């Protein structure tokens, strides 16, 4: 995943979302060692303090744990990763339903539409 930031929200919170996305998608496997803060900051084009702050919050949430001598690791708690996956999916569905409601679709109509859509296995970029 590449790093892309919105202009109107704090960058550290967008980094948190990005890393959560990487954990859920498996790009960062459970228990995997994370690159150094400085390295990731360089890659993302952000200030190392900002990256540090994002990691500090991820540590507080328990998704990442730091080992004093050997670096930072993704949690090995699969249950926690699954909870995170459900949380992100829930948010995506809520946002999707909100948008569909705005253009006049009821829940049943949306479900019907989803069932009709045979392109669900694509990568979402099917134009």
């Amino acid at each position: 995943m590449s790093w892309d930031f919105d202009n109107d929200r704090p960058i550290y919170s967008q980094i948190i979302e990005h890393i959560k996305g990487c954990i859920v998608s498996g790009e960062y496997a459970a228990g995997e060692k994370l690159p150094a803060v400085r390295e990731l900051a360089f890659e993302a084009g952000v200030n190392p303090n900002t990256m540090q702050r994002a990691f500090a919050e991820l540590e507080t949430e328990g998704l990442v744990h730091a080992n004093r001598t050997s670096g930072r690791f993704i949690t090995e708690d699969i249950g926690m990763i699954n909870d995170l996956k459900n949380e992100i999916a829930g948010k995506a569905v809520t946002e999707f339903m909100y948008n569909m409601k705005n253009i006049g679709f009821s829940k049943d109509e949306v479900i019907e539409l989803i069932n009709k859509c045979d392109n669900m296995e694509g990568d979402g970029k099917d134009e």
Partner: protein
Amino acid sequence: MECRGLWKSYGAFPALRNINLELRRGRIIGLLGPNGSGKTTLIKLANGLLTPSAGEIRINDIAVGVETRKIVSYLPDCVCLPDWMRISELVTFYKDFYEDFSEDKANEMLANLHLDKNQRFKTLSKGNKEKVQLILVMSRKAQLYLLDEPMGGVDPATRDYILNTIISNYSPDAAVVISTHLISDVENVLDEVVFINQGDIVLHDSVDNIRGEKGKSVDALFREVFRC
């Protein structure tokens, strides 16, 4: 860097009015304001090129002077190196001048930007002159970097290189002050911003706070605060 009750007047014109400001090490700070707001004056005071009309400015708790120049690396807003020198001679020049200058670092950056060390400074384009100057400034291991318009005359790809250089040189022991108009370019690397207008500090806050509380980018806030 700490300013207390700092004033600077040019004749009867006050360029800076009662500035109180504290900048800490380990931070990257944007000094932002419209033309003529006092950015360059503040930077020159911090570097000892100007003396205050009133108040004081200290770096590392030492009044600005010979001692602070050892720990302050300054990029002026104009190209002002001896232009008859070759790039390689300029590197030696800086090495002679500053104890904290790393020749290896300078040579590495010059190579990355495909600058030929045998070229004389005056034969370089405006943008390449600016690149050489910035490389020399960033090759020092200073405690305070004062960069006055570091990206004014360079192309967007080089801007990215400059920002990456600032990120990769980041040190918790050093503060980096960047004065610029190109806010959207630097916004992602800044910890905090200082808005300065007509010699006054009108805002000093972290970028996270501005985005979090106002829901807009520093660039958008700047346009709002300084609407003409």
